[in-house]
């Protein structure tokens, strides 16, 4: 079986700081995603990538950058952390048909 790993698990940043979250998968999945989860709001798509070097904006891309330099990894950058921001960022991957969706365990962000 494969695994999808997010690092770090916890991230504390300062207002205005640029913060990078990483995600690695060894399923050989084509598509990778970054979602943001806020309390009571479900998951919202930030960016996704259907193959190496591809990048597609989701519903919440403003304030974020992403990079898919290799098929197995997808990183997300918070370009300028907002004070008192608190959310969980979830990475996922799937095969091209979308039926084999697997999530990582999340990165919990707190901005002080």
């Amino acid at each position: 079986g494969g695994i999808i790993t997010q690092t770090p698990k916890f991230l504390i940043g300062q207002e205005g700081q640029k913060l990078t979250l990483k995600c690695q998968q060894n399923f050989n999945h084509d598509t990778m995603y970054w979602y943001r989860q806020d309390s009571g709001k479900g998951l919202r798509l930030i960016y996704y990538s259907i193959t190496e070097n591809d990048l597609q904006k989701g519903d919440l891309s403003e304030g974020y950058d992403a990079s898919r330099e290799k098929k197995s990894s997808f990183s997300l950058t918070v370009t300028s952390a907002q004070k008192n921001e608190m959310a969980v960022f979830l990475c996922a991957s799937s095969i091209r048909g979308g039926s084999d969706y697997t999530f990582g365990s999340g990165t919990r962000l707190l901005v002080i």
Partner: protein
Amino acid sequence: GMPVEQNPPALSLYEGADSGLRCNFSTTMKSVQWFQQNHRGRLITLFYLAQGTKENGRLKSTFNSKERYSTLHIKDAQLEDSGTYFCAAEAGTGSNRLTFGKGTKFSLIP
């Protein structure tokens, strides 16, 4: 309205009881997935449906694309069923991107 409307927002059951969750879609969806998020925050896939009904143990899910809804039934509720359940649907644009419902927080009444 919201593309994916999930109800109820919260659900409390006695051990052994049965209940159901429902998601309504504002447009025709290609497929639906149901996830359970445990207390550690990890999302586990329960079902993927392009149509029809699937069962797995005490869980059963139905997806009716034409009528624009999906349901998840929990039978004989147990402590391990606790957590938050999400439905997520794909609109069929070819991107595999999912739109999530807001979740149903499920707990067992002691």
